């Protein structure tokens, strides 16, 4: 656990980067610091490994003031990942990853073995071990950065916009893999980003900072979206806050109708002819498209994308319905077989229901 107790930082030139920050980053969880550029995120992170000394307050790790330990020892026990990875250009990938184990006195061979393990963990092929950093793509360099930070198995990880410098597709895959790694290693992580989407995707807890280094709100992602503390947080969350919030509500409660499914080559039953749309499925049950019972012979309308009936959120279901010209979403099971369909109107009703439930819960 990392505890900030009324921490502030004023730089020698008078800049108030962080003002009276109190925060607790729980163990084995990702705590995200998010906010506009210049709001003191990096400063906060760098105070945690003492690259910057606070001008007021204390920072505790597991209850002990970080100033009690020799600074080099403190830093070797905290993984540190930065935006452009900051890899050593004169060392190979394996040597880069082995940095802290080597500093801690591990012998070359054991350190290399550990490097190769970590390369696998972060999804790097071990044939890259003897390349130099500039021979890797940006995404690969960032993975090396993460591997290097994890090499000595520190309890704490500090990450400063680690995925900001790569393109959106690579970023998404880095984020997903990062979450998988975290599920495996369970580190106490402070993660800085200016991207609220990334914060919500990754964070267990989110600290929103505002200019001048003030903490605007500290909450779990869902709570943040549901109850922004003030106008600043609300504006920072953006206009699709309402839709994004649906990410946290399961589509489990939707009533999927099964009477609109019709197998290829099978005549619709009499009752089905009353429905505006029928979902054509193949012999295995995979959706093929929408057909209008009143216009037999017309080409099926594509369904857009389906949602996973049990696992996906209401956001995925709503998106599927909004995307399809018929206004219906198709729910599928793990094997991609259609299990039922649901209309925009029914999804809207489920959203209202979820709202009512959360209001009553307060």
């Amino acid at each position: 656990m990392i505890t900030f107790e009324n921490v502030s930082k004023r730089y020698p030139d008078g800049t108030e980067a962080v003002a009276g920050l109190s925060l607790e980053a729980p163990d084995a969880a990702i705590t995200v610091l998010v906010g506009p550029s210049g709001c003191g995120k990096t400063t906060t992170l760098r105070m945690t490994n003492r690259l910057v000394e606070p001008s007021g307050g204390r920072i505790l790790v597991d209850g002990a003031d970080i100033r009690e330990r020799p600074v080099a020892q403190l830093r070797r026990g905290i993984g540190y990942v930065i935006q452009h990875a900051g890899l050593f250009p004169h060392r190979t990938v394996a040597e880069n990853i082995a940095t802290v184990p080597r500093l801690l006195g591990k012998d070359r061979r054991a350190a290399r073995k550990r490097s190769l393990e970590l390369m696998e963990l972060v999804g790097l092929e071990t044939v890259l071990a003897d390349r130099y950093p500039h021979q890797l793509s940006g995404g690969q360099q960032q993975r090396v950065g993460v591997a290097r930070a994890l090499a000595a198995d520190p309890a704490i990880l500090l990450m400063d916009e680690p995925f900001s410098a790569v393109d959106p597709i690579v970023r998404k895959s880095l984020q997903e893999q990062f979450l998988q790694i975290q599920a495996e290693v369970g580190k106490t992580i402070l993660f800085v980003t200016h991207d609220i989407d990334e914060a919500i995707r990754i964070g267990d807890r989110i600290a929103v900072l505002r200019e001048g280094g003030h903490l605007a709100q500290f909450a779990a992602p869902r709570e943040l979206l549901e109850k922004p503390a003030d106008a600043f947080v609300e504006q920072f969350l953006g206009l699709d806050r309402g839709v994004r919030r649906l990410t946290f509500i399961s589509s489990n409660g939707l009533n999927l109708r099964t009477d609109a499914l019709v197998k290829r080559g099978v005549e619709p039953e009499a009752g089905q002819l009353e429905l505006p749309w029928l979902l054509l499925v193949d012999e295995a049950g995979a959706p093929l498209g929408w057909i209008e019972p009143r216009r037999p012979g017309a080409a099926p309308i594509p369904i857009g994308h389906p949602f996973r009936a049990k696992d996906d959120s209401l956001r995925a279901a709503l998106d599927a319905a909004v995307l399809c010209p018929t206004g219906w979403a198709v729910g599928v099971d793990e094997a991609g077989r259609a299990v039922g369909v649901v209309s925009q109107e029914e999804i809207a009703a489920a959203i209202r229901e979820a709202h009512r439930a959360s209001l009553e819960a307060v």
Partner: protein
Amino acid sequence: MSALATSVFDMPSYVQSSYVGLILTQLEVSLGATLAGLAIALPIGQFCSRLPRLYPPTLGLVTLIYSIPSIALFVLLIDYTGESETTVFIPLTLYTLAILVPGVVDGIRSVPRDVLDAADGMGYGRARRYLAVELPIALPTLMAAVRVAAVSSLSLMSIGATIGNYGGIGDLFLLGLRFFDNRLIWVGLITLLVLSVLCDIALRLVQRLLTPWARSLRSIG
């Protein structure tokens, strides 16, 4: 062939040293001065990159030293060090600073800020960071300066002939002039050229061995 070689490279008695002896003196003094210059330039350069405000005046000073004619320095030094190799060695060393100090500073400045940041964040101490991170990354820039300094010392050393026989190969120029022997001047000139080229090649090789990472950097960039 060997008869020809003997006749071309045989030194007349007034040279007071064998051809090989001249080459050895030449290499010893000029490369020694480059090394000594490097030993001085490293801490000065480190100092200047820590305190950037001191760099312009320091650069001004080493450039000023470079502009002092060597004859003047010899005359000043000769009272203390006599007619000796040292009298040649000291000015040569001082001259290399004009090349090596900026070489060290540019080299250290070529280390990316985020690399230093990462090194600090991982718990490198100051000295260890300097030796294991800054110096290796500065090496390509630094070695380029060392090569220029070495070759320039090889050439500048010739003037040492004016204070006796301390110019290495350069002695041949003065003696050739004095004894109307053009052969000595040509032998000296060609030897000096060949030495410079060989020296540059050798230093490039050293650089390649020391910076395998920079080689692939060049081939890609």
